[in-house]
């Protein structure tokens, strides 16, 4: 084939002229600081972006107006001019009593939604008195072993009015059941309850690794919650498909984007295969992304996410409902970017990361506290984190106009690059048979580990700067920060309530409900009704998860 010489466009010719006449003399006089410039994901960044870089992007087709397909500029026509994002600080530690107090404190300070962090035994489906829970009760979140704990956790918090997000995955259906039974006892109408369950089991196998059952039955439990919520709790988001943890485990921004959206597609496929209507259940699927240090890369990631999702829903699944096309997401600043050294610097990092989330059009936001590389946040640190959001929202003016960076040559070009890169990953994963299959092969796990290692090496070579760690280091100041300490008395307190609960309940009702749950699991029926019945009878989290383990078995991670 004869070689076709590309004809330079007027835009490219203009760039070449500038390089020749202006840039080159300048470079001869003073060279640039570095040979190569890279994002925190170690992707190259060009010197300058111009109309030549965005020539292939069609405004109507690819970018469009806010509130219109493919939603690159946001899902709301008025951006934040109508309603600000929800300020939703993730909180949970110690006993349900303590966390209930923190929730009320945060709400009294202007926080607009709640987000529960559970402790590790709860995340793994063990009761506080299990031998495996020793040393872990109330440490990384609040301890909840039964409905009795959940009643205390939400005491005085009206669940019909407040939206609550719950970070729980492997045992998510059980915690959802507990939440609904507490709401029922408050007299709330299920149809009015809104809130979010994380319930994203795929990213557990990829990154966070708090799993219980093997992948396929675990996916079945997720689909059960989709079906149950679509019918009975229609305003509730039964899943928050999460890239956050994948990023924290070391993935690049692009890998976070690609794996998360492909996870989302997998959930939609499983729902469709179970007979659910795309345009009925998908509008309640929400997403959760990280906000890392590289400002523009993050903004491009969020904008690309909306565009990809809209197109995938319309093209792959023939969705007709605009709400199915609209990707809604929560953002949390990057815990992994926080440093133990000079911890007050973290306030600045968090502010900039949060700003990226806002400029990317997030629906809700959690800002990390400056002391989180040391321990769970103190009241003071949690309050500064909330104030950071309030300053962005009400002092900086960034919420006054919709998608303020839209049209930036750099941001538009990076958005397109993110989209193309994610679609490449989709093709690879589709070729493996889907996300479940690709996780079984260890593909996203290996990709993530590889990136984590590359980043660590780049830091150690000084190619990536961490202020206060590999540059501008000082004698350690972390000792001057007060931290939150959770003592072992928490476990005793929780075990005591567990024992009381077990002695007061109707043992026959508990064992009947657990039998019913095992049967539902074995027969492939929806497990939610039986789970709710077990919760009502005060069966504990550990007992309910054990019943399901009896049927499903447990996941063993292969060595990748």
């Amino acid at each position, binding site marked *: 084939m004869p070689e076709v010489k590309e004809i330079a466009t007027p835009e490219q010719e203009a760039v070449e002229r500038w390089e020749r006449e202006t840039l080159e003399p300048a470079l001869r006089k003073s060279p640039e600081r570095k040979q190569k410039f890279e994002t925190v994901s170690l992707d190259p960044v060009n010197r300058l972006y111009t109309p030549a870089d965005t020539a292939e992007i069609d405004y109507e087709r690819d970018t469009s107006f806010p509130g219109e397909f493919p939603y690159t500029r946001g899902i709301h026509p008025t951006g934040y001019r109508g309603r600000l994002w929800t300020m939703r600080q993730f909180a949970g530690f110690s006993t349900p009593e303590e966390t209930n107090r923190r929730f009320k404190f945060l709400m009294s300070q202007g926080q607009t939604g709640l987000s529960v962090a559970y402790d*590790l*035994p709860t*995340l*793994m489906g*063990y009761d506080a008195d299990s031998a*495996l*829970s*020793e*040393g*872990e009760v109330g*440490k*990384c979140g609040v301890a909840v072993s039964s409905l009795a704990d959940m009643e205390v956790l939400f005491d005085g918090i009206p669940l019909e009015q407040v939206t609550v997000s719950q970070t729980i995955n492997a045992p998510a259906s059980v915690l959802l059941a507990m939440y609904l039974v507490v709401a029922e006892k408050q007299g709330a109408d299920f149809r009015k309850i809104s809130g979010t369950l994380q319930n994203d089991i795929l990213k*557990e196998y990829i990154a*966070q*690794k*708090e*799993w219980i059952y093997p992948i396929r039955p675990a996916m079945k439990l997720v689909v059960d919650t989709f079906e149950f919520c679509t019918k009975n709790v229609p305003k509730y988001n039964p899943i928050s498909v999460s890239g956050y943890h994948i990023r*924290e*485990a*070391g993935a690049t921004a692009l890998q976070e984007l690609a794996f998360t959206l492909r996870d989302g597609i997998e959930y939609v496929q499983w729902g469709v295969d179970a007979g659910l209507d795309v345009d009925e259940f998908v509008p309640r699927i929400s997403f959760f992304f990280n906000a890392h240090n590289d400002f523009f890369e993050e903004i491009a990631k969020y904008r690309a996410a909306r565009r990809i999702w809209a197109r995938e829903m319309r093209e792959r699944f023939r969705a007709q409902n605009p709400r199915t096309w609209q990707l809604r997401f929560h953002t949390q600043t990057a815990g*992994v970017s926080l*440093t*133990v*050294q000079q911890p007050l610097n973290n306030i600045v990092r968090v502010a900039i990361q949060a700003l990226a989330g806002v400029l990317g059009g997030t629906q809700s936001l959690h800002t990390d506290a400056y002391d989180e*590389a*040391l*321990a*769970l946040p103190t009241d003071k640190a949690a309050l500064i984190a909330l104030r950071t959001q309030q300053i962005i929202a009400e002092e900086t003016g960034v919420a006054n106009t919709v998608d303020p960076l839209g049209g930036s040559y750099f941001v538009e070009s990076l958005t397109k690059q993110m989209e193309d890169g994610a679609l490449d990953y989709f093709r690879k994963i589709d070729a493996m048979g889907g996300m479940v299959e690709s996780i079984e092969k260890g593909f996203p796990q290996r990709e993530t*580990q590889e990136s*984590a*290692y590359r980043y*660590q090496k780049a*830091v*150690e070579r000084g190619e990536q700067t*961490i202020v206060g*760690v*590999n540059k501008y280091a000082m004698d350690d100041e*972390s*000792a001057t920060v007060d*931290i939150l*300490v*959770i003592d*072992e008395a928490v476990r005793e307190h929780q075990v005591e309530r567990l024992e009381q609960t077990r002695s007061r309940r109707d043992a026959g009702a508990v064992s009947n409900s657990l039998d019913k749950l095992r049967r539902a699991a074995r027969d492939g029926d929806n497990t939610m009704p039986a789970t709710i019945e077990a919760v009502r009878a005060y069966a504990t989290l550990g007992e309910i998860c054990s019943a399901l383990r009896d049927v499903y078995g447990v996941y063993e*991670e292969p*060595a990748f």
Partner: protein
Amino acid sequence: MERRIRVLVAKPGLDGHDRGAKVIARALRDAGMEVIYTGLRQTPEMIAAAALQEDVDAVGVSILSGAHNTLCPRIVELLRERGMDDCLVVVGGIIPKEDIARLKGQGVSEVFLPGTSTEEIVNFLRENVQPRT
């Protein structure tokens, strides 16, 4: 030929954040050590048994959940009970300042906090592992 340093990288407790453990395991391997990674959710008993079976020179414990005061001294104790008196125990993760001295008093050789370079850890092991023939 000089015996290569053998290290067991262990992840005790319920926490699943294994980014650190995996980065360290690979860095030690790249530095020429033999590394055995236990996988997640190992009890102190399982860790000590693996250390003995693999005849390691050091156990690197990765932990960020706050359960270190319960789990780390137990690991040291079980290693000593099994006669592994020279086996180093080093800890990496989110460990409050106040706990570091206590852990060292309980037999932990060193605690590496976030921000430590892998090179520092490699050097520590090279300098402190007891030579064997």
